[in-house]
Structure formats: C-alpha cells, structure tokens
C-alpha cells in the first residue's frame, strides 16, 4: 500500500465523503453536541476512536465468519452487537488503565454505542472492497471528517448566537438551515477523488 493511496483514502473520508455533511449520518450528535467547542471536540475524538476500534473488530468477523458462510445479511445486527460490546469493553479498560482519557471522553463514550455514523463506517467500506489496512485508514478519515464537521458547525453556531435572527427562524429552524448550507459547501468536494 503506497503513500498516495493512503492519502487519497484519508482525504476522501475527511472531505469528499464526509459522513455528516455528505452522507448525512450521525446528525444527532452533530446538532446536539455542537453548541460548545470543547464538548464538540471531545465527542469527535471519542467517535474517531470508536470508529477505528469498531472497524478493527468487525472486519475480521465479516471476512472470516459471515462472508464464507453466505451470511452477509446478518451484517447489521452482528455489527451492532459487536460495537455495543466493544464500547463497553473500551470503557472498562480506559477506566482502569487510562483514567485521564476516560475522564476526557466522559459521557460521550457510551453515547456513541449506537451512533449510525459508527455503524456506517464499518459497513459502507465493503462497497469499495478495501483491505483491512485501508478500511482502518478509511475509519480514521471518517472520524477526522466528523471532527472537522463538528468544529466548523460549532463556529457557525457560536456566530449565530450573537446574530439577530427573525423570530420565526430562531432556535432549531435556523440551526437546520445553517447545517444544510455547511453541507452544500461540502458538496463542492464531490467527484474530487
């Protein structure tokens, strides 16, 4: 696997196929936790971490158990099971050995157990036929893309707080509008890779 390929996979994960802004997965944390910068960054780092771990755990199960036995249709339920157990395990391990990281991730870790972006990352890369290593890089790229989207949108929301917004748009409506405009900007990347 040469360096340019790694770069392309990473870039496509961050920009072209941004999970939040181009694939519309993981919208719940995107709207819910993007009010403050520190919680947005905390959430994104936790998501990135779980995405990579989940891909590392689910890829071998799919390739070695499900695929050879023609049980591809079990993918979704098995992956959810594995991700849920994995997040619990990661939480226990972190609590014991890496207390500082555990405290930094805080409530966000259990929150993302059933985040659709995490499930999406583990499933969608099969369409492209990535190898194990490529799938891991793809997961890392997707996580970084999530971080980018969160930080960008957090900036937009902070600006919006001081803006004078028409009464009928205040609150959720203007947030959704702003999200769609940020998403439109990311559409500009489509077809690049």
């Amino acid at each position, binding site marked *: 696997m040469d360096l340019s390929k790694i770069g392309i996979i990473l870039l496509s994960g961050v920009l072209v196929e941004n999970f939040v802004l181009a694939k519309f997965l993981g919208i719940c944390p995107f709207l819910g936790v993007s009010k403050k910068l520190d919680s947005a960054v905390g959430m994104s780092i936790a998501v990135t971490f779980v995405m990579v771990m989940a891909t590392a755990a689910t890829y071998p199960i799919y390739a070695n158990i*499900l695929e050879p036995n023609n049980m591809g249709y079990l993918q979704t339920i*098995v992956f959810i099971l594995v991700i849920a157990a994995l997040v619990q395990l990661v939480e226990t391990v972190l609590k014991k050995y890496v207390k500082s990281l555990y405290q930094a991730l805080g409530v966000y870790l259990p929150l993302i157990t059933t985040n659709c972006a995490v499930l999406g990352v583990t499933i969608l890369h099969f369409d492209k036929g990535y190898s194990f290593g490529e799938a891991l890089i793809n997961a890392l790229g997707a996580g970084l893309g999530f971080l980018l989207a969160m930080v960008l949108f957090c900036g937009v929301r902070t600006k919006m707080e001081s803006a004078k917004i028409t009464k009928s748009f205040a609150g959720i409506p203007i947030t959704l509008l702003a999200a769609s405009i940020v998403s439109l900007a990311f559409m500009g990347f489509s077809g690049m890779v």
Partner: protein
Amino acid sequence: MSGIVLPIMVVSLIGIGGGVILTIAAKYMAVPVNERVTEIREVLPGANCGACGFAGCDEYADKLINEGVAVNLCTPGGGEVAQAVGKLLGVEAGEVVPMAAIVKCAGMCGKTSYIMDYQGPRTCEACNFFYQGRGSCSHACLGFGDCVNVCQYNAIYIENGIAVVDRELCTGCGMCAKACPNMLINIVPKTSEVYVACSSTDKGAFTRKVCSAGCIGCRRCEKTCEYGAITITDNLASIDPEKCTNCGACVGVCPTKVIRSDLPAAQDETA
C-alpha cells in the same frame, strides 16, 4: 432447516462471547472504590442535582476524598450534611449559605397575553422552540412546568400561568434553573428578600405594550438605591444580593411593581 441454524448459532455465539468478555473485564478490571467514598456518599442527599458543581453525588464524594474540595458545596443538604461530611473527613465544615430559587417573571394571567393557541407538546422546551414561545413576551414564563417536573422537593408549582417557588421546601439545588428554557429562575441566598420579577431585555416601550408587569428600564430604582445594589443592563434591572440590604426603597418607586419583596418563607425566617 440448516439454513437457519448456523446464523442463529453465529449471532448467539458472538453475543455470549461479548457477554463473557465483558464479565471477565468487569471482574478483573474493576476499579476498587474507596471505602470512605462510600461512607461519604451515604451521608449526601443522593438527589444527584449537581448543585455542588459536579456530575452527581458520587463524583462529589470522590472529589471530597481524592481532591479535597470544600465540604460545604452541597446546598440541598445544607449545614447538617456539611457537618457530617466534615466529621468524616476531620475538617471544619464552615458555613453553608441557604439558597432558594426565585422566578424572574410576573407575567401571570391578566398581566400579559398569549399570541397563539399553542397545540404542540406540553413542555416549555418544545413551546419555546416554536416561534420562541406562545407568550406575547418572548422572555415570559411559558407555564408548562418543565421546572415542576425536575424538582425533587415539590417546591415549585404553576399558579395563574407562571411558576411559583415554595421557599420553605426549596433547597436551592438549581435543577429548575437549568430546566427553564428562558432562564427565568435564579438561585439566590435565602436572606435576600427583594427581587426583580422580570427577565425581559426588550426596550421599555415594547415591554409595556405586551405586559403590564414587566421591567421597562426606567432607572428609578437605580437612582433610589442608596447602596448601589441595583444596575440596569439591557433595559432590565438586576439586584446584587451582596450589596442589597432588603431596605425596600426600590419596591416603592417601581412604576410597574416589578421589584417585589413578597417572598412568603423569607418573612417566616425573620420572624
């Protein structure tokens, strides 16, 4: 038949495997909980309200032991809990200032009006999302009682369309202040009796139009106060409880009677 057996086996095996790994992990990686933390945790009220500034009673107990934070942070528990915790830790408890919630809105039925017949979910939060609420004043109490739902001491209730605090039951935990989407509820020392019952930062003329019990920012109270405790910011008077002496001079001059000193339980305390 064989088509269904294998998938069932695979899913159950993965499930059981996950369960076994988690159980083993929980057993071997359990972080031993300090016995003294458990002791202190039992003394704390257990409301998990977060008034101390930590995520709950468990975290406060943990911080008390491991980081030596102050023992008098628990407002719901008051002096009793502070002393009990201090005894366990062998430190002086210090004083706990009793706090209580005040609702900074007096827009009850008859004083202000609704601009719509709101039919959505019956919570303040939902109503506030919808065109900033049903009241003609966007800072008004929405009256659906999100604060009532979170109060663990039954100390707040809705009367005449606005929230009212029972000062005797209120522990000042601040759960209601967090629940109010319009941020109308403040936590102040129980000793301060004078408060501004309005949160509107709209211009005086507009406030006057939509509500007969709103602060219009006329500055009469600011000029009257001898102690410099009242300041007007964004067309709204606010009282600094540290400077206020409860003299009540401002109550008399307020043209819309929005500065009040009629807190029932506060009078009981002085008696």
